[in-house]
């Protein structure tokens, strides 16, 4: 086992900034990322192109482990052991690597939240992030005629990426009434001006391609036998209950849905970081409740790539300091974080998920995709057995017990069942599946 200086998990804007900052203080850094190329979600690079522009620009003190999945974080005396498998994804031939560090930066990002509706398990229904990742990373459009639906400004870059790879975006359905939401918090909107600048650009793309943007609308059903052939789009009231008589059938061959993001929290939970309101709690130096563990980026709140990078810089410096480096306080990054957090709060307030979604699904709608647990079965189990916590909820209903370990269904299932400890779904000591033979050699 090698004792590294700083170990950074996640190679998105937060993780890359952390690695650069720590290396800038002369500390040896190992940057571990599951992807073949750095960049994370926002800066996703085109896979088939040669080279990795971010890896090439890294300081020499950073060792980048690509195709490297952290499957466990093990607390040991005064340090953490980061268990990594490196190689072809999900293949038993991966090679193990264990990094022990006193300064661990977690920057594992987030993934889209998808809400269930009848037909959401048909092929052709994608998350918005999937459409984005496929467009940016593979140059592939998920369909020819696509509806983008959900909530938040993220729908716009997704729609414009789809347009860029040749898809026709039939419409963008925003479940909230976005404009009034922004206006309600001018200070926050102002602080996130760079983001809104970006939004103006995307809005331009939408306008040029004649993509209608409809607020208070959502895809509430998808139809087809083997894959999506059409969707039902309905107008929503303030609580996201479909307005009677407003349903329209729209012919599509793909749907991209995204209702905000859920942080990818298992490594932070494994390191025993305190979680507050679904995010990792951090102090002004991005330190978590656990000494020697820092968190940055979407793990700590959803606020976009600039905020993630600023947090990453601070976390990287704090981690370097912990292993003995002398650092100057990153005043500029700290100011960026302050304003970025205001932006993030405004974002969260403007694009909430409203309870009406619970009525989009029917009794026979699958809510846990892995284990094919329907809403009806879930609610019956909860009622019959008076389930009061996530741990028993999973075991009496089967929801969240499949391969994704509740990543997709966890929050939805907890809300439908009325149990409050939704974050308990993030307790996944095995952060990513590992073959038994790999585990045997660890």
């Amino acid at each position, binding site marked *: 086992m090698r004792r590294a200086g700083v170990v950074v998990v996640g190679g998105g804007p937060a993780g890359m900034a952390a690695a650069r900052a720590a290396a800038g203080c002369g500390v040896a850094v190992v940057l571990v990322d*599951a992807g073949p190329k750095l960049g994370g979600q926002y800066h996703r690079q*085109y896979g088939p192109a040669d080279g990795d522009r971010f890896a090439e620009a890294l300081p020499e003190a950073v060792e980048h482990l690509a195709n490297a999945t952290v499957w466990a974080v093990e607390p040991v005396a005064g340090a953490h052991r980061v268990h990594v498998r490196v190689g072809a994804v999900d*293949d038993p031939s991966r090679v193990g690597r264990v990094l022990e560090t006193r300064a661990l930066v977690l920057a594992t990002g987030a993934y889209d939240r998808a809400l269930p509706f009848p037909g959401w398990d048909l092929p052709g229904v994608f998350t918005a992030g999937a459409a984005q990742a496929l467009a940016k990373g593979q140059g592939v459009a998920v369909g020819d005629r696509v509806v983008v639906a959900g909530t938040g400004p993220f729908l716009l870059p997704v729609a414009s990426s789809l347009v860029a790879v040749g898809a026709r975006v039939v419409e963008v359905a925003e479940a909230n009434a976005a404009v009034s939401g922004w206006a309600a918090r001018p200070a926050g909107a102002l602080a996130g001006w760079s983001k809104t600048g970006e939004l103006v650009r995307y809005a331009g793309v939408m306008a040029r391609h004649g993509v209608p943007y409809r607020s208070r609308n959502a895809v509430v059903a998808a139809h087809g036998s083997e*894959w999506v052939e059409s969707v039902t789009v309905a107008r929503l009231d303030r609580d996201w209950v479909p307005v009677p008589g407003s349903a329209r059938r729209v012919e599509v061959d793909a749907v991209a849905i995204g209702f905000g993001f859920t942080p990818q929290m298992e490594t932070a939970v494994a390191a025993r970081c305190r979680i507050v309101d679904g995010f990792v709690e951090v102090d002004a130096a991005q330190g978590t409740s656990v000494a020697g563990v820092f968190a940055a980026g979407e793990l700590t709140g959803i606020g976009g790539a600039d905020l993630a990078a600023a947090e990453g810089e601070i976390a990287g410096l704090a981690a370097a300091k912990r292993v003995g480096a002398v650092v100057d306080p990153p005043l500029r990054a700290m100011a960026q974080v302050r304003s970025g957090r205001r932006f993030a709060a405004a974002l969260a307030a403007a694009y909430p998920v409203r309870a009406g979604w619970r009525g989009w699904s029917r009794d026979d709608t699958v809510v846990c*995709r892995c284990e094919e647990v329907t809403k009806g079965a879930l609610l019956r189990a909860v009622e019959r057995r008076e389930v009061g916590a996530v741990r028993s909820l999973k075991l009496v209903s089967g929801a969240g017990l499949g391969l994704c370990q509740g*990543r997709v269904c966890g929050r939805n299932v907890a809300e439908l069942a009325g149990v409050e400890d939704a974050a308990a779904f993030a307790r996944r000591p095995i952060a990513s599946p590992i073959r038994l033979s790999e585990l045997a050699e660890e």
Partner: protein
Amino acid sequence: MRITVDGEEVEARPGQTVAGVLLGKGVKAWRTTRGAGRPRGLFCGIGVCFDCLVRVNGVPDVRACQRLVAEGDDIRSQAGAELPS
């Protein structure tokens, strides 16, 4: 490079994911569920949902959206739960 998908030869490029190749060919579903035998393909696209499982070189439960293709890969659709060969 050449790979095979359910026995049929397919042209692919380094840096493509298995899902990228399949969707690029217009294949939308390559797995069936264990319970109801329903078709599934890509959903989250970033490795979190495990909907896109596929069999690669005899090994099932491989995430097609994350796995990069390699020369000669034998890719097969997966029916429910399968054992490695």
